[in-house]
């Protein structure tokens, strides 16, 4: 608190007020999380009542087949949609940052749409799209497709691309484009310049974008619920359905596991973005010479 640039610390009432404000914010943020974690160990069928310590709910989580299936579906959806959206999102970022082409501004604007429009809107759009698409495919080719795993993956890809490309683009924008030219000049082909220069330098952005995409995919309820079919439920959607059936502390345990996974991913993405956070050092003013 005593950095040389900081002004004089507030004193008296102001200081007390500010301290209390800070603590209130912390309580507001973290008390629910703490409660959730604590009650996931509670030995009482009633969610909000403490009945002594137990690991039963975690054991039930491990034994419940429906949960296992939805967890595995969640992970597969997250993995596939992340890989696909990272490749497409990075390509979109490269196209927008490195080249100029007709309709670039429109493309740029459209790319941000999934970030801006509400989840429910997106979900309804996806639902409509897939029903129409599957109907059409059924009518033309007799393919009996129905909503399920594939439609979930596709809709997750659809919203993840935007987030990936935003993150990667920020990284690309901070990269000196003379570096690629220097690589060309040093006998690298376009692919080699990308592989040896551009890719290593934007890698933290790509990893950050991937972890973000994965987190979003693992957390999504609204869109998934609209486009999922019978027998293809992700974990968050399953938890949501549990609530309607009557709440048991099993939900708490499931939520804690999901929370831990999300926090880990977000932390990893922050770390990745911090690693090598200065892609091009500015040449310092000369003071000595060899």
């Amino acid at each position, binding site marked *: 608190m005593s950095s040389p640039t900081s002004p004089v610390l507030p004193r008296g009432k102001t200081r007390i007020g500010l301290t209390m404000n800070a603590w209130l914010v912390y309580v507001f943020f973290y008390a629910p999380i703490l409660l959730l974690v604590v009650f996931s160990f509670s030995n009482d069928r009633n969610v909000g009542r403490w009945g002594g310590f137990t690991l039963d709910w975690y054991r039930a989580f491990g034994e419940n087949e429906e949960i296992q299936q939805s967890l595995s579906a969640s992970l597969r959806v997250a993995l596939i949609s992340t890989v696909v959206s990272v490749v497409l999102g990075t390509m979109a970022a490269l196209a927008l940052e490195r080249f100029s082409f007709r309709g670039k501004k429109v493309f740029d604007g459209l790319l941000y749409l999934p970030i801006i429009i509400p989840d429910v809107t997106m979900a309804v759009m996806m639902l409509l799209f897939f029903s129409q698409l599957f109907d059409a495919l059924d009518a033309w080719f007799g393919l009996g497709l129905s909503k399920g795993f594939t439609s979930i993956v596709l809709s997750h890809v659809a919203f993840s691309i935007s987030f990936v490309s935003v993150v990667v683009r920020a990284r690309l924008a901070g990269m000196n484009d003379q570096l690629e030219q220097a690589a*060309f000049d040093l006998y690298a082909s376009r692919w080699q310049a990308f592989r040896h220069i551009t890719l290593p330098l934007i890698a933290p952005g790509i990893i950050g974008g991937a972890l973000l995409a994965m987190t979003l995919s693992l957390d999504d309820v609204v869109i998934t619920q609209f486009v999922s079919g019978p027998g293809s439920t992700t974990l968050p959607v399953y938890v949501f359905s549990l609530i309607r059936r009557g709440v048991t502390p099993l939900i708490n345990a499931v939520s804690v596991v999901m929370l831990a996974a999300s926090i880990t991913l977000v932390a990893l993405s922050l770390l990745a973005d911090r690693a*090598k956070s200065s892609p091009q050092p500015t040449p310092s003013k000369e003071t*000595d010479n060899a």
Partner: protein
Amino acid sequence: MTASNAASDLSPAPSSDGSTPAVGIRGITKRFGDVVAVDAIDLSIHDGEFFALLGPSGCGKTTTLRMIAGLDFPTEGSLTIFGQEVGTLPPNKRPVNTVFQNYALFPHMNVLENVGFGLKMQKVNKTEIVRRSSEALELVQMGAMASRQPNQLSGGQQQRVALARALVNRPKVLLLDEPLGALDLKLRQEMQTELKSLQRELGITFVFVTHDQEEALTMSDRIGIMKDGNLLQVGSPEEIYEAPANRFVADFIGQTNLLEGTVESSDTVCLANGARLSVRSTEPVGSAVAVSLRPERALLHDRDDVPDGRSSLDGVVQTVTYLGNAVVYRIALDWMTLDVRAENRPSMKRYSVTDEISVSWLPQAVAVVAQ
């Protein structure tokens, strides 16, 4: 510089035909949309020469360099490197290397990896890469820094690494895009001398882009002066300084006083104030010209004390600027002002403001330049 072995190893194979220009530019034009960056220039850069492209910013010099490098392709015209047409050949297929303006060192590689990158791309084997890269680093006196990261180096050191990274590939032509621009004055002057001696030692053709006329004069065998996409004059520093092709060149290279006038005959120019100067000129009779009088070529005398055989104009001392090694007088004529530079010698007579004096020069010391 102790690495003469390294130097000979880095030299390019001698060209089979001595008369083939290292870089041949014929009618090269580059347009960016409606903007003409380079306008149909012709230029031959000789093998083994230190050539400077000089001009104010936006004159097309960097675009010209980038076309030689292959980073931009000409809209029209022919570009050859040692006789081989390279017009639209990508940069990785050309026997040239570039030292970029801000060095463009790869931040995720150490110094040795940076220098070895070109060789790695050419599939040279690993031990050979290390050997040649280390040699190139010795050549620029950076051998001790091989394992540093670029951001741990000062500007001057980065500059040397960029140089080694280009030279290690034994380019037939080395292109330098304002490489000294980011260095402070003292280091800059050191690097100028060093670059020049490096170029002599290696015998590689250097093409150097700069907006600094003093730098161009110091280092180059020949200079090409560009303005608005046109090549105005090509010549040795001496030719350009002594016989500028036009008003812009005269003014851009060094300092000069331009006295407006009209050609009356092959050895007389009538100045704007009506005075007649005897000076040789090849410009057509009746054309508007300027007489370029360099400040250091003029002498000051007491009024009416001008020796025979010298041209002169009368004026009044307006300001006196003491520079240490010289004194610069600004002289007010009744129709313009002149700068006169007098070396600071003990024998020199000093004048002060409002002194009535005459400015004189030898007729062969001035040049007539077209508008």
